[in-house]
């Protein structure tokens, strides 16, 4: 399958979980970065260009929803998939309202995760594409004057 090179950021305070999911995603050829807290994820986003963030809802300190809000404020085009470990779908719904692309209930099915990952990635590329075109158009218009 054709895959555009892209980066995934995995954010969860549970180290073993992050490690295992990273290994699985790497096994199918993904490039994965890790962050173990909301704050750390923001640092990583500042340093590296990321396409999709997989974000645990429940973390000590800055929780998933807060992190999501911060990510969306700073990088509106980055897609976020929420992982709800403690299951109040409520939080997931709230996350969707705050601009998350989708959510998964932990433990999530790997195939389901990769499907959503690919869709999120597609949407990001579509949007970037559209913005590029829009910019090109406005450049064109400006040069027409």
């Amino acid at each position, binding site marked *: 399958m054709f895959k555009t090179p892209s980066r995934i950021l995995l954010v969860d305070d*549970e180290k*073993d*979980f992050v490690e*295992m*999911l990273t*290994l*699985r995603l790497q*096994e*199918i050829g993904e490039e994965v970065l890790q962050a173990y807290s909301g704050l750390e994820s923001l640092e990583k986003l500042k340093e590296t260009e990321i396409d999709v963030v997989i974000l645990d809802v*429940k973390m000590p300190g800055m929780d998933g929803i807060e992190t999501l809000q911060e990510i969306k404020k700073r990088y509106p085009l980055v897609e976020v998939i929420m992982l709800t*470990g*403690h*299951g*109040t*779908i*409520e939080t997931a*719904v709230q996350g969707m309202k705050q601009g998350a692309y989708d959510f998964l*209930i*932990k*433990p*999530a099915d*790997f195939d389901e995760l990769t499907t959503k990952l690919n869709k999120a990635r597609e949407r990001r590329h579509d949007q970037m594409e559209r913005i590029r075109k829009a910019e090109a158009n406005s450049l064109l218009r400006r040069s027409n004057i």
Partner: protein
Amino acid sequence: MSDSHNISDSSHIGEMNVLLVDDEKHFREILVKRLSQRGIIALQASDGEEALRLLEEKPVDVIVMDVKMPRMNGIETLRHVKDQYPATEVIMLTGHASTRDGVDGIKAGAFDYLTKPIEFEQLLRKIRQAQNKIRRAETEKKEIEFRERIKQQMAINERLVALGTIATGVAHEINNPLAIIQDSAGWVKQILAKPEMSTIPRRPDFEKALDRIQTSVDRARRITQQLLHVVKTQSAEIPDLVEMTEVNLRKLAGECIALVELEASYKEIKVSLESSDPNPIVWTDPYQFAQVLLNLLTNSIQATDAGGKINVVIKSSEEQVSLAVQDNGYGIPEENLTKIFEPFFSTKAVGVGTGMGLYISSGIVTKLGGVMAVDSQPDKGTTFTIELPVKA
């Protein structure tokens, strides 16, 4: 026996049965007649033994009884009566100047005593007082029963809430390690799928073990997801997840039956649908209600032997619609009736039932403003009834 049925003023006395026990026939007959004129129907007995025989056929509310009688005397009869019919009140009639008998009577449980020759109006007053005492005792008993039921219900509710809270906590704590187990096994599987791994020794053993891990994780995951669902259905702060709309209950029930028909047909179980109203409309959330109905139907199928019958009956009135799922299956033993609504209570084999079905279902019904009740007889069958308000 009394032949005076044509009484005009019986209404203010209400239904009351009086038994008059005296060995003097003349005295009895006069009294019965006078009582009947005042709206009180009285049976007669000429001695204690006859009185006890009559009581066996038909218990009475108040007994008016002479102390002095041949064979079994009044006090002895009184003891038998109080022993076998404690709710019956007895007024003793004692001879002149034998207060002793009256006191003995009271000690043996008589309501009161009157001295012969009796004054009729006084007897009437005493009978009415005895009747009032019975009425009071009855209402008190009902009140106590009612309070007891409410208390039980509250205790059950409290336990459900506590269990729900614990259950959610458990679900949360389990999900993270579960995710790690799943991804670890999944990773090994991915590795095994690589071409360079195709010839490793004992490959089927690895695959078998990984497969077991996966099915077990799936099972645990189903349990925790249902637990999480409980939270969703129980927490009242998320009304936007309940989508209330006008629902034709007969149509919805038909759709649910269609979903389980295949499973039922494997066991040759017939599922039928009856509705007094062709279009019983309720205002509810069709998806959540369907979930409840599917749970009930599945339970009935699982509890019914081959050739059994399941009947869904819908009855509607102005204010409410009731839906009953009846089966002629194994039934539920009395001691389990209060437990079946608790989370994780299941009599089914591991892997068949998680015991969450009724817990979740009753939560949903409550949330939709309805009530769910169960009626079951071992080896005869079970009926679950849901009552929903027509308008929320």
